[in-house]
């Protein structure tokens, strides 16, 4: 994106936001009836009566243990301050205390609905540090696992954000398919949630017999299933009224906040690491990066649903290209990378998931830092929530698609 475009976008954004803020009554000078009561005087009906409301950490719609301190006037949100850290387990510090391969299971526990992509990002970083070539079969299987994980993560998002807005039924349909995906994972690596399904230089296991055929069957079935979810939500008037125009983020804002993933794509920026910095074999696969222009909750919904369709396409191509071969690259038994600093990232279901590794030449990282998409995307919440109602806050938490394991690490 050039500077010229950005400044245009910024101008648009300023105008748009001023308009929206005015419509929502944000920053409006208090009219006579709105003046806060003078100290000692009883409040009248028309005063802004600020109430502080603790939203979470024990709340069904915060998707974990997020706490949001709300300042509300009636139901209107004046201020929303996310308070994170309830699930902090010091994962980054744990990486320093253990050897490189021992770090992989810790990544499972970060974004726990998308363990495969976490494993992938971690392994990719170490492989880049070691300069190891991953065999082609391993690359393809990794992409298959990634896309299955993207599907299952989006399905969890779809179900839970539906429940947040009171649509209970899509949840069960989404989880029906997610269950099948978890079955595929279970058959591959024995685990359903904390997969630990990748190794530095390749994969721990080869695929079991019949796995590919069964997956092909499932993949052929999936587009019709996605139609089912869309049937319930996409053209539903209530669903649209709850999502269109809610939590609008302009392209410039997304860039400012460093947002990635479906959030930035719903705001009109075609930024997908699978396309922008292809890793593994994504450069030879034919898929589109869905984008939308309005940057509201509805567009983020559409983008994610379309991404699911693209994942189906990618899965088909990968399954078609699978050939027998090696699954582990040439990796020394004891991994002692050269003393270097390196950053590698992948497109996780939530956005750019990267690891920054500082090696001092020993068998443990000197420092391992994670770039968690959930955490960085969550920054936009106060901006999105301001001026909306409490019901919208629930929709907004859902639309950011946070996993608290990743936010707090």
């Amino acid at each position, binding site marked *: 994106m050039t500077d010229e475009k950005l400044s245009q976008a910024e101008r648009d954004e300023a105008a748009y936001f001023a308009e929206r803020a005015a419509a929502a009554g944000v920053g409006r000078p208090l009219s006579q009836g709105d003046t806060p009561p003078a100290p000692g005087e009883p409040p009248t009906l028309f005063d802004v009566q600020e*109430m502080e*409301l603790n939203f979470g950490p024990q*709340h*069904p*719609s915060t998707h974990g243990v997020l706490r949001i301190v709300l300042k509300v006037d*009636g*139901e209107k949100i004046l201020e929303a301050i996310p308070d994170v850290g309830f699930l902090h387990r010091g994962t980054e510090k744990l990486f320093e205390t253990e050897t490189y391969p021992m770090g992989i299971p810790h990544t499972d526990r970060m974004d726990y609905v998308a363990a495969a992509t976490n494993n992938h990002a971690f392994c990719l970083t170490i492989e880049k540090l070691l300069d190891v070539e991953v065999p082609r079969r391993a690359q393809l299987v990794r992409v298959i696992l990634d896309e299955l994980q993207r599907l299952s993560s989006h399905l969890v998002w779809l179900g839970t954000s*539906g*429940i*947040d*807005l*009171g*649509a*209970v*039924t899509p*949840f*069960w*349909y989404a989880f*029906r398919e997610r269950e099948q995906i978890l079955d595929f994972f279970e058959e591959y690596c024995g685990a359903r949630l904390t997969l630990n399904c990748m190794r530095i230089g390749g994969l721990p296991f080869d695929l079991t017999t019949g796995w590919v055929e069964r997956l092909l069957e499932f993949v*052929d079935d999936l*587009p019709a299933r996605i139609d089912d979810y869309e049937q*319930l*939500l*996409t*053209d*539903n008037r*209530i*669903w649209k*009224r*709850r999502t269109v125009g809610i939590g609008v983020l302009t392209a410039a804002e997304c860039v400012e906040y460093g947002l990635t993933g479906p959030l930035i794509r719903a705001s009109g920026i075609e930024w997908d690491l699978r396309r922008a910095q292809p890793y593994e074999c994504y450069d030879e696969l*034919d898929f*589109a*990066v*869905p984008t*939308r222009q309005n940057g509201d909750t509805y567009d983020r919904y*559409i983008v994610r649903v*379309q991404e699911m*369709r*693209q994942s189906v*396409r990618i899965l*088909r*191509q990968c399954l*078609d290209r699978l050939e027998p071969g090696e699954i582990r690259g040439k990796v020394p038994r004891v991994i002692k990378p050269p003393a270097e600093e390196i950053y590698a990232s992948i497109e996780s279901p939530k956005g750019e998931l990267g690891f920054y590794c500082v090696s001092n030449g020993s068998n443990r990282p000197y420092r391992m830092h994670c770039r968690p998409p959930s955490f960085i995307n969550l920054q936009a919440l106060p901006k999105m929530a301001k001026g909306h*109602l*409490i*019901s*919208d806050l*629930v929709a907004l938490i859902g639309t950011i698609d946070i996993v608290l394991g990743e936010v707090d690490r």
Partner: protein
Amino acid sequence: MKILTPTFLTYVKVLLIVAVVPAIVGFVIVLAERRIMGFMQVRLGPNRVGPKGTLQGLADLLKLVTKEDVTPARAEKFVHFLAPVLAVIPALTALAVIPMGPSIRLARHVSTPLWVADINIGLLFLLAITSIGVYGIILGGWASNNKYSMLGGLRSAAQLVSYEVPMGLSLVAVLLMTRSLSLVEIVMRQDRMQLWFVFPGLLSFFLYFVSGVAETNRNPFDLPEAESELVSGFNTEYSGVKFAFFFLGEYAAMIIISCVAVTVFFGGWLPPFGHVKALSFLHIVPPFLWFLAKVGFFIFCYIWFRSTFPRYRFDQLMALGWKWMIPLSLVNIVIVALAILWTPGRTDGLVRLGWLFGALFLLMFFLAKLRQALARRDRLASEPAGTRQSALKA
């Protein structure tokens, strides 16, 4: 058979309504709701307690009754206690005027109608007494000393009071046709006119049922409890028997709304097309069962809505109520009044009105479908190319 005096029979009927209705609520509706929703949501629903899960309601009831009854610290104790009672008593009282069937013979020379009381202000009594139930929710939300409960209470205060208006107004339009407030007389008149009032009162019925769903806090208008936003709202701080009372109150209110819909719009205990000779075999089914089947259908609709729709937002709900429902119900009154004015005392005017409404509803339905199809076409056009092709089928 001296014991079967009318007074005695009335007592028996009152007892039945107070004792049997909670049982029906506990066993049949809750179980039906959970099983039907399970069916709609590709899962099984409760099937462990008793044969096919039929005793699940009893298990739930036992659980609630044996649970500790917690009153939060600094809650308004008396009001906190009073609220669930207020929620449930009016709903049960209202059942007294619902005619569930014509007279049945109990013994020789002894017969009794299937209603407790046929009062000449029946419909007014119903509206009045059910609005008392609203206080239960408002007071419960306020007395709990919990911010979420209070928000729930505030929501219900606004929502329930607003939707009383279109509900009452939609019934006014029907009253023009019934010329009586007595529910028994309303059913009788539908029998005499050989016309259910749902036909000329299609719009009234629509308005009534939508407001009814809003009145009972059910999806898509379940904002006062909104578990994903307000963590159950007004009943967050309730447990044990008090919670059971709120629960019972909600389901009893559902029954009332359905009963009134059936009585006023769907001919109460009358079989469908009862005056058509070819369909006279429908009279074989006892009237009470017709009534039950119709009420069951509306309760099924409640469950159906719940598993289909997302929830409205509060301001949208109020906008819907004040900008659409109330003006529409006023227009409806005018239309019905004009129809009656032009064809006084005759049924054919009302029938023509029914055809008009039917045509309008069909038109609206097709317009909505068309709009949906257009939106879908636009959406598909905006999808990236190649998404819908099955890419590789070599």
